């Protein structure tokens, strides 16, 4: 990780082009956790409520667009319809051995989600000093959004109450 960071700093010295660079040249100020929305049952959905810590960082529409797209991906993965029945019956008939060589529909959608999050991070969130963590790395419980402060701006206090709390001691 450190060698990569060093290499990146040589080639792209100043701006947040690269996510690795974001991590190593900015400091983490705070994390916001978007919780699950259980109003429609146990299917995977996240709340689209806009957290107050992000108000100064990103536009509401962009944030909502991201969360809604993710919700749509998960809905597609968990849809119970013709394709899922077919997959289930076929798998059952082969005593589920077919999953040793075939990827399930859910896994395919998870790959799409990972790519989408990477893309969103690169285009929209990293330039604003934010980073989205794929929900699957947090047990599909939360969407974790890390808020970074530019290292150059010292003493910035937006959203960093926990940091100032520790330094005050």
């Amino acid at each position, binding site marked *: 990780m450190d060698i990569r960071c060093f290499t990146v700093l040589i080639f792209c010295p100043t701006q947040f082009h690269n996510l690795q660079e974001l991590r190593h040249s900015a*400091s983490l100020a705070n994390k916001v956790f978007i919780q699950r929305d259980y109003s429609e049952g146990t299917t995977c959905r996240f709340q689209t409520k806009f957290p107050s810590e992000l108000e100064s960082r990103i536009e509401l529409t962009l944030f909502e667009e991201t969360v809604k797209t993710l919700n749509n991906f998960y809905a597609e993965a968990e849809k119970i319809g013709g394709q899922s029945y077919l997959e*289930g019956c076929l798998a059952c008939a082969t005593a589920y051995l077919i999953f040793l060589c075939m990827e399930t529909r*859910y896994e395919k959608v998870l790959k799409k989600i990972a790519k989408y999050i990477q893309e969103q991070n690169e285009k929209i969130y990293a330039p604003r000093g934010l980073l989205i963590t794929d929900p699957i790395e947090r047990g599909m*419980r939360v969407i974790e959004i890390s808020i970074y402060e530019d290292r150059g701006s010292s003493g910035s206090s937006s959203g960093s109450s926990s940091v100032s709390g*520790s330094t005050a001691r």
Partner: protein
Amino acid sequence: MSAVMITRKLRKWEKLPGKNTFCCDGRVMMARQKGIFYLTLFLIIGTCSLFFAFECPYLAVHLSPAIPVFAVLLFLFVIAMLLRTSFSDPGVLPRALPEEANFIEMEIEAANGSVPSGQRPPPRIRNVQINNQIVKLKYCYTCKIFRPPRASHCSICDNCVDRFDHHCPWVGNCVGKRNYRYFYLFTLTLSLLTIYIFAFNIVHVVMRSVDQGFLSTLKETPGTVLEVLVCFFTLWSMVGLTGFHTYLISLNQTTNEDIKGSWSGKNRGQNPYSHKNIVKNCCEVLCGPTYPSVLDRRGLMQEDSPTAANSEGPCSFDNLVAQTVKTTAPLIPNEHTPDDVKPSIAAEKSSAPKDDPPLAAKLPPLASPETDAETSIVKNQ
């Protein structure tokens, strides 16, 4: 040249909390006590071996060769389902990382306001509305999360499991969202296999006795007696269990909910997870999507575990967060299952109205209701 420490890259399963055992470099995940699982395997393989050794040659010749063939297929399917149930991740929810736990703590404190010293804080419960029904989400002190609906903490495996059904010692694992359908298929096909072997044992004994007499038949195929005994007792319990789970599936309930009486009695007909249609409920449980494991057992551990001595140059943000957690996080009493909860749970279990088939009582305790700390808080209040 300085001394080089040989550091093997660790896989994540080696550092997972909880009381699971892992095999095959994290591919297999089971509970700690596996004795009864080995017994299950032994009974199934032993009985089927006796069947193939003693009955099948005679039946293949005198009746049809399809009989042993079908028995082999059924046997292989049963073993596949058993291993799939036992070895897979039931749907374990990973514990909250310090930042998330801290965030939840702050939310709880904000919601509760200030509690006068000496008073017990209110129980940690979050109300959500699911399909116009209020469901209470409980806080898990061990995993530091609010459990999703239908999730429960298994005290034997020390994990929160999504759509927790029960902990089954016979398969040596919890039964949850990810392996419930394999468990159901295992009980179903094992019932069929037991009925099949039992029936053909009887047929074989009758056919042979007609030629040779009953006693000499038993002398020639001594395995038959053993098989009939094992099958007779297994049959009743397995058919009963399969029937019970078919009933649960048709109502889209878990064993845990049934035992607690969440959607029975005065709450009957209010299950928010049910589609109110038997076929739809069955299809969702048995033919629904195959959920992925969120545990990532085989991923490699990241090497950025910082200490104050190691961080040099760019301040490692994990270090920063670790500091904030230490100084600002309130002390949460980590309440593991207190012993006084267990008798109260047992009392609750016996008094709850149950319509289980009476044969289920013959089995060793299949369902281990999770004993979470806040139950004691609620009871004591």
